[in-house]
């Protein structure tokens, strides 16, 4: 793919030239008698220039992009076709290894080839690639020139170059936003596709309702413990237990009280400092919370459990992971609750205070009920974040899929299992690895539903006070 950088540079050069020519033609319209009246020439000269430049650049870039994406394949196909019959590698792994060796030789990574056929193929590769490069370079230049010429001939004083350029800018912005949307869409599709493959091996009812999680697949048929169990209920329970129960028991009261203090009691100056500081806390990498949970909190929790006579306390516990996750979520809850409380009109608060209610009565009986939908929405968003959180549970909750309500025991979560299933060398067609996609799909659907529901609650509430 040598020279593609130079080709892009040439295309941009062509664009600049087209811009200059278009602008020059439009400047002539303006300079003509009567051309300087407003409206005599519809668009400013630089829009005419931009219009011609776009018509030159776009087709050229499309051709070059095609070359960049498909060029390797084209060259490889031709090189393989040119090999003498009999020395041609088999399609598949063999062919891939051969091509990789050829490319290595071309780049100069290898001083000599293992495969004598590759030596010849490398020379062929260089020649074929050069030919294609020239072909595509000339093609790009040609379509660019044609575009520019066509655009240039269309320029008239009343030609609406500005509207066309603006429309193109809009198109570009739409394209940019589509990238993110389509990527997400693609990820979801791949999740669904791989999950479907998994459900062909393991029945969906066993996955959703089975109580035993032991993701093993046999390498040999006669292996001990060759049958895996893919009942994900212990994982779902572990996720809910840590993320939605223990973490929320920590985060909701502390977050809510923080928000109440900041919105109702603290001095304006303190709030101005404390609120951003709290929000910075939300940006601490979760791995930092993770090792704090694993190295400090988990041993402390175990020692505490032993000291009160719980003998089977594990060194990795749901409680440790849940508490640290709760602390991590506090800024999130407090920030949402803060917004919800601040959105309650001041007249509500004044009305209650003027009735002789104390500030705490006002908060309990008027402000929190009025802000409740916003607070609930914020909590749901926090739950959806907590159940998707990975590092803390991987490091502190453990990997044992226990179905237990004892917070001192080790449990595991959906995210922790996905990590365990996909790290290391894995086959990508066994039920074990594919189950990670099914877990991911469930996690995605649950958090999506939570987010949609939470946002609709928050939105409805906002409308009520505008």
């Amino acid at each position: 793919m040598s020279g593609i950088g130079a080709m892009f540079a040439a295309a941009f050069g062509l664009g600049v030239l087209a811009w200059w020519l278009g602008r020059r033609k439009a400047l002539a319209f303006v300079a003509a008698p009567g051309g300087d009246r407003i409206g005599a020439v519809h668009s400013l000269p630089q829009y005419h220039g931009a219009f011609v430049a776009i018509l030159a650049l776009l087709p050229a870039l499309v051709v070059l992009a095609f070359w960049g994406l498909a060029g390797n394949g084209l060259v490889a196909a031709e090189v393989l076709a040119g090999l003498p019959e009999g020395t041609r590698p088999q399609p598949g792994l063999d062919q891939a290894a051969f091509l990789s060796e050829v490319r290595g030789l071309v780049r100069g990574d290898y001083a000599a080839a293992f495969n004598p056929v590759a030596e010849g193929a490398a020379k062929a590769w260089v020649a074929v690639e050069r030919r294609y490069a020239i072909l595509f370079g000339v093609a790009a230049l040609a379509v660019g020139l044609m575009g520019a010429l066509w655009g240039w001939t269309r320029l008239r004083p009343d030609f609406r170059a500005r509207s066309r350029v603006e429309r193109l800018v809009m198109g570009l912005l739409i394209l940019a936003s589509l990238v993110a949307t389509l990527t997400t869409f693609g990820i979801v599709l791949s999740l669904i596709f791989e999950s479907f493959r998994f459900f062909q091996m393991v029945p969906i009812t066993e996955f959703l309702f089975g109580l035993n999680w032991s993701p093993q697949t046999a390498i040999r048929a006669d292996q001990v413990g060759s049958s895996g169990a893919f009942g994900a209920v212990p994982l779902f329970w572990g996720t809910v237990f840590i993320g939605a129960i223990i973490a929320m028991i920590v985060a909701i009261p502390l977050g809510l009280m923080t928000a109440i203090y900041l919105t109702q009691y603290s001095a304006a100056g303190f709030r101005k400092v404390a609120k951003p500081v709290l929000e910075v806390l939300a940006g601490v990498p979760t791995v930092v919370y993770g090792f704090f949970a694993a190295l400090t909190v988990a041993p402390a929790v175990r020692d505490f459990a032993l000291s009160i006579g719980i003998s089977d306390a594990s060194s990795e516990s749901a409680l440790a992971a849940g508490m640290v996750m709760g602390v991590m979520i506090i800024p999130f809850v407090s920030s949402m609750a803060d917004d919800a409380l601040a959105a309650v009109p001041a007249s509500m608060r004044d009305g209650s205070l003027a009735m002789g209610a104390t500030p705490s009565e006002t908060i309990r009986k008027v402000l929190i009920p009025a802000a409740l939908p916003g607070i609930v929405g914020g909590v749901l968003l926090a739950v959806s974040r907590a159940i998707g959180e990975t590092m803390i549970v991987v490091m502190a909750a453990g990997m044992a899929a226990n179905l237990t309500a004892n917070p001192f025991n080790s449990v595991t979560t959906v995210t922790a299992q996905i990590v365990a299933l996909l790290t290391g060398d894995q086959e990508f067609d066994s039920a074990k690895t594919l189950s990670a996609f099914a877990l991911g799909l469930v996690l995605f659907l649950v958090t999506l539903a939570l987010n949609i529901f939470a946002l609709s609650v928050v939105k409805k509430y906002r409308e009520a006070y505008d």
Partner: protein
Amino acid sequence: MNQMSMDVGTALGSSEAVADAAPKMTARNVAVSYGATQALRGVSIDVSTENVTAFIGPSGCGKSTFLRCLNRMNDTVASARVTGEIQLDGKDIYAPDMDVVQLRARVGMVFQKPNPFPKSIYENVAYGPRIHGLARSKADLDGVVEQSLRRAGLWDEVKDRLADSGTALSGGQQQRLCIARAIAVNPEVILMDEPASALDPIATAKIEELIDELRGKYAIVIVTHNMQQAARVSQKTAFFHLGSLVEYGDTREIFTNPREPRTKDYITGRYG
């Protein structure tokens, strides 16, 4: 006397000011500042149960600021400083031993924009009695709610839907609900800060009627932009201008025979 003041003159209510038994609230030499800005200075006024007192004056003249001193709502503004003396039944309301919660139970307030709580109609009215422990039983509370809604002239309109949200009522009904809410704790003084300025003429007429009915039961102070309204509902009028009290006297006197030229100019529409 020109045409303008004739109009206001014809709007005067039928009731004359009666002699005050004893003033309910007295203010002496009250001054308020927000930070470095002096909002109000040297205001001395008496408020009685027998007569409705109206505060009039152009925007920013300090009339609402003074009203908010009477139940210490200015306490909620951190930068506000109040000096001078305000007494309720002879007791200084800014004294250290005065409990602001009890003060506000005795001096109720109705705001410019109706601000019912996002609760049911019943709960809105029951709010005050509940926080002050005024009702011993459910039946007791029911009685207080009904009586307050009757006094506010709202009972017949809402008696079948007490469980509906207070915010679902019309603007005029919401404001009468707020008045019922204030009445429910049986206050001695009711402060009204432009209570009809957000309402249509029919709802406004109802509020004005209501104020007239409540006269004699509560000491009522009303701030208004609308001079006809002041003339219709009040027996005493205080005219504020640029942070000071220009003239205070019987409403009939203020509107037909003002002593101060500034009062006359305002009433006849020269400015404001």
